[in-house]
């Protein structure tokens, strides 16, 4: 590891402030009264992502991590808050003005079986993005597609093949090539390896690692697998029920988790070592409904440290060490 000087403020590529996303609850076709209730998917999320930085966003189902990733790209509209991309608040842009930014921000999806059009060849899948943004034509377009295939570990022989002719790992490589086709500055990767076999997952993780180095990509990597996130991330954000519990440089978070939720989550990961000491911190019960999240700290209903105070106020994110923040009044 090389030591880099602390970056200046203009090194921030994506700046997220107080982002909130509430979804209205549908009460079914037969109900006459429309419910005013909402699912509080993301609540008060703020984060600065620096150029070239890989952020790992972890949490269990219902933590809001996927909603967060889509709201940042405006693939779903945030309910409130700001997302500044190179200083411009993209949440205020019209759809037309948004198009220029769409080229700079891309997404890689989890399921390489569902996210590629089965009737398109690899060339057409990757070429579509190039055409949409009018980036290349004719031989230059073909050359660009071959270059992208090679960059992602495939080759020109794959141009004319259809998704069903590829394995899961190869499809995910096509998904990555498609995202890279428009030379994006920022990529959200939503569980990019969780549908892959272990031996293939390592290949795709190494590819992302290489691309990060080679292209200086800024990446928001959403994953439930804490091992995967540690491997690829510079910083890790832990979410629970729509809120940030802890943010820290990857090494610090794993060596020194501060928030009781992070501790419990890490202790629950099965380790491939039969002699590993397993000091598990059991979490009682399950994640509460995001329609009626607990007052104060949302984690308190499962927290071993919870006291009456925890129900009173939402704990602010406070710094415990440089760059290491936690939202807990007891730590």
């Amino acid at each position, binding site marked *: 590891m090389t030591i880099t000087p602390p970056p200046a403020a203009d090194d921030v590529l994506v700046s997220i402030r107080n982002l909130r996303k509430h979804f209205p609850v549908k009460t079914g076709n037969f109900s006459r009264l429309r419910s005013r209730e909402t699912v509080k998917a993301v609540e008060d999320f703020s984060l600065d992502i620096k150029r070239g930085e890989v952020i790992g966003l972890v949490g269990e189902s219902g933590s809001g991590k996927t909603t967060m990733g889509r709201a940042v790209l405006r693939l779903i509209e945030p309910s409130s808050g700001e997302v500044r991309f190179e200083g411009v608040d993209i949440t205020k842009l019209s759809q037309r003005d948004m198009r220029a930014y769409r080229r700079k921000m891309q997404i890689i999806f989890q399921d390489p079986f569902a996210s590629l059009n089965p009737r398109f060849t690899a060339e057409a899948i990757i070429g579509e993005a190039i055409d949409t943004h009018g980036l290349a034509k004719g031989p230059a377009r073909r050359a660009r597609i071959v270059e992208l295939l090679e960059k992602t570990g495939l080759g020109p022989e794959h141009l004319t093949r259809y998704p069903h002719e590829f*394995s899961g790992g190869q499809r995910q490589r096509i998904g990555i090539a498609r995202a890279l086709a428009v030379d994006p500055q920022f990529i959200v990767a939503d569980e990019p390896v969780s549908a892959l076999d272990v031996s293939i997952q390592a*290949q795709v*993780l190494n590819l992302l690692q290489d691309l990060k180095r080679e292209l200086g990509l800024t990446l928001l990597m959403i994953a*439930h697998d804490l091992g995967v996130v540690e491997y690829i991330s510079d910083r890790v954000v832990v979410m629970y029920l729509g809120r940030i519990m802890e943010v820290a440089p990857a*090494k610090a978070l794993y060596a020194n988790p501060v928030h009781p939720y992070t501790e419990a*989550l890490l202790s629950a990961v*099965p*380790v491939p070592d039969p002699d590993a000491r397993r000091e598990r911190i059991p979490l009682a019960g399950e994640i509460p409904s995001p329609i009626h999240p607990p007052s104060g700290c949302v984690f308190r209903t499962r927290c071993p440290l919870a006291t009456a105070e925890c129900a009173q106020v939402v704990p602010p994110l406070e710094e415990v060490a440089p760059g290491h923040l936690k939202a807990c009044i007891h730590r």
Partner: protein
Amino acid sequence: MASPTPLLQIEDLRTHFTSDGEIVRAVDGVSFSIGRGETLAVVGESGSGKSVTSLSVMRLLDPAAGGIAGGRILFEGVDLVTKSEAEMRRIRGNDISMIFQEPMTSLNPVYTVGEQIAEAVRIHQKLAPKAALTRATEMLELVGIPEPGRRIHSFPHQMSGGMRQRVMIAMALSCNPKLLIADEPTTALDVTIQAQILDLMRRLQAEIGMSILFITHDLGVVAEIADRVVVMYAGRAVEEGPVRDIYRHPRMPYTAGLMQSVPRVDRGATQQERLYAIPGNIPSPLDLPEGCSFHPRCAHAEPRCVAQVPPLEPVSDQHRVRCVRWRELDFSQKRPA
């Protein structure tokens, strides 16, 4: 530990399917045994044949697609392969039970969970409906569902994934089976819920003393739950032994590679900068390589690996490996300090 008479002994099991007139050897000569009270994990990636092996034991294969083409499945010394469907129906649920990955699709959405557990008890143990419902309540309590008397009236959709998997376990154990087959039972669950379910399975095994055949792709889960492990690749068992032996001293390059490609949370600063990745892709079952199926991806392959399928050879008393070069290769894992 394997007792003198294993509860389940699979000998040279071959399960084949036909696809477009071609024979797919999904399971190609697999043998292993499970002792009483023992947990055996079968670990493998897609297409390894691990799930087909478990479905073969339960005789739950679709006869139109294929079936057991050879071998024996001895349960308490009796060959299940020769059993009629009627005889198998008495064995399933009674002596051998199974739980699956996705508890939502395994439960009937239009019956309450209590009715579903009671149904199993009524059929197999011939209990009266009221007694069966009492038994269902006891089972829900056993698997740690709060307010079991109220929850027996819940429908599956009213429960979370973790709760539904507890219901599946309650149903599977309601007739005191001797063998529980668990096919990726925690794969669809979050890690904190997975930890709860694994704890539950360990506790119930200690209390009830059943044997468990645990199918998974997760090497971490294997290390937590299993006594012994069988590693499968492309339809064959490639390595087998006590968990500690296999994790410390894997002999098959595939096993060693698989262990190294898992990103781990327990390595701290010693986490390598680059993950070890096994090159290439998992072979198509329609087009398996000659000889050792792993040789095209193996860094240690030699011409003799292509010449013939290596035999499963004993490394020690309980450790067996299918690799012609196992004597020369050392993948022993050093524990980080």
